């Protein structure tokens, strides 16, 4: 619960340091793949940071990612890069604050449904603005940022996120989230404001996604709302988090690594059937790995340690 051990931080930094050398040894094709992987790793981890402890399934990752990318497309050439990144994070956080304030005090289902259509709404708003105000739908991003630089920036972001996640877990907010996850009603009676805790986390997680979107933007050179706010991305992020297991920090990271390879293989061999295969993989995960790979592994470890005890009846459908 409260630990000051620097070991996890050192471990994360050491791994990051080694990975940072990758651009010197791999081909540019492999580097592009690694960038995609890092991007998903950041997004899935940020998603798991919020959805894991709260069990509020966000289907709107692409909204914040797209906001980040669009910020770059609009102000990338007129502001210094760090200011662009800061602005992207601020806008992403601001939107998350509004969405969170409206939905996080309600039951999880409202949040899910709201995030389900949010990307469509934002896409429409941005398109409308571009068509009516700037009079062009697409934008070109001409920034002098190389693949290697994008790689290092994403790696730095992932490192910060992982370190932040460990620090969060050791913090009062992290403890609060465990208590809320355990029993929200009880938590209220001990001075905890669950809505505030959830909101703080949702805003934080959204800012990270916006940063990822901003860092990735220079790769595209051309951006329009349909590209930036493509709902498939949200879907991929959820599937990664679920596959790995969202109740552990490293679960979504593991899921991101595995799924990126799977996506790569699938989209190469069956480009037409991509949606179908994703849908099927998703359904299989829900049936076979309800707590993700990490959850399954933990289950197996627990089973070898002691005999399973058959506890507690389900709430619905006993005996039926």
């Amino acid at each position, binding site marked *: 619960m409260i630990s000051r051990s620097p070991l996890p931080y050192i471990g994360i930094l050491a791994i990051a340091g080694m990975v940072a050398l990758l651009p010197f040894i791999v081909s540019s094709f492999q580097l592009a793949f690694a960038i995609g992987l890092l991007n998903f790793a950041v997004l899935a981890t940020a998603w798991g940071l919020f959805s894991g402890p709260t069990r509020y399934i966000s289907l709107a990752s692409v909204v914040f990612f797209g906001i980040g990318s669009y910020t770059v497309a609009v102000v990338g050439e007129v502001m210094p890069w760090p200011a662009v990144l800061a602005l992207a994070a601020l806008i992403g956080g601001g939107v998350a604050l509004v969405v969170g304030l409206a939905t996080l005090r309600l039951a999880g289902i409202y949040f899910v449904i709201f995030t389900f259509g949010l990307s469509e709404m934002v896409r429409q708003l941005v398109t409308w603005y571009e068509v009516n105000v700037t009079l062009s739908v697409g934008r070109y991003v001409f920034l002098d940022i190389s693949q290697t630089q994008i790689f290092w920036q994403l790696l730095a972001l992932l490192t910060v996120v992982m370190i932040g996640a460990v620090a969060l877990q050791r913090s009062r907010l992290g403890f609060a989230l465990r208590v809320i996850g355990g029993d929200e009603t009880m938590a209220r009676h001990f001075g905890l404001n669950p809505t505030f805790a959830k909101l703080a986390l949702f805003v934080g997680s959204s800012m990270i996604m916006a940063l990822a979107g901003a860092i990735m933007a220079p790769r595209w050179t051309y951006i329009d709302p349909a590209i930036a706010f493509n709902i498939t991305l949200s879907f991929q992020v959820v599937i990664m988090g679920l596959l790995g297991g969202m109740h552990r920090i490293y679960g979504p990271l593991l899921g991101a690594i595995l799924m990126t390879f799977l996506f790569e293989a699938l989209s190469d061999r069956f480009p037409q059937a991509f949606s179908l295969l994703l849908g099927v993989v998703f359904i299989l995960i829900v049936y076979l790995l309800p707590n993700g790979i990490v959850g399954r592994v933990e289950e197996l470890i627990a089973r070898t340690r002691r005999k399973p005890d058959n*506890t507690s*009846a389900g709430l619905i459908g*006993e*005996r*039926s």
Partner: protein
Amino acid sequence: MLEVSNVSVRYGHHLALENASLSVSKGEIVVVLGSNGAGKSTLIKAMAGLVRTEPGASVVLDGQPLHKLPAHRIVDAGLALVPEGRHLFSTLTVHENLLLGAFLPRTRDRAEESMERVFEVFPKLKQRLAQIAGTMSGGEQQMVAIGRAMMTCPRFLLLDEPSLGLAPLLTSELFKALPSIATTGTSVLLVEQNSHQSLSIADRGYLIEKGVITGQGTAKELLESEEVQKAYLGG
């Protein structure tokens, strides 16, 4: 004849009910007395199939084993429960609530006849048929709940603290109705804290404490028992 034996229920690590056994004959009214959290609600829910029992439990009604059936089949077998919290269809009318009691094919043809029986026991309901059930007072809702259970033509009626939340006057009105249900051959098992009133209409009673049935006797014995007095009033 209903025979319950070795029923245990576990919630997580907490054993809420341990090897409970009891029996009720045809037409009998039996009360199970216990304090809050003693396991009496759990016992009744286990009988109705609403909670899962541990292996080894058996509930047999007139020779037919019920303990492996899902809740809706147990109702069909003739055992009806008036649950704690009533579980009425609150946005539906009283009439619809009663009609739904006669959902099962074996009861459907007798629906009108059954409803007349309900009105005999609770004449008040006849004028309230069009009212939305959720807008009634607690006592009236309890009548609808019992009426709905009667509509399933049960051979055996379970009542989970029917007096809960009712004013004393309403409670006695309610308890006076129970013997008239039993006279037609329907057995009644109720769990209660309200010892005097429930014992005054019962034939026999069981005592339950911390998930274990600790005693039994005729209603008269229990009423006169100092222990019962002490446990429920602090003497």
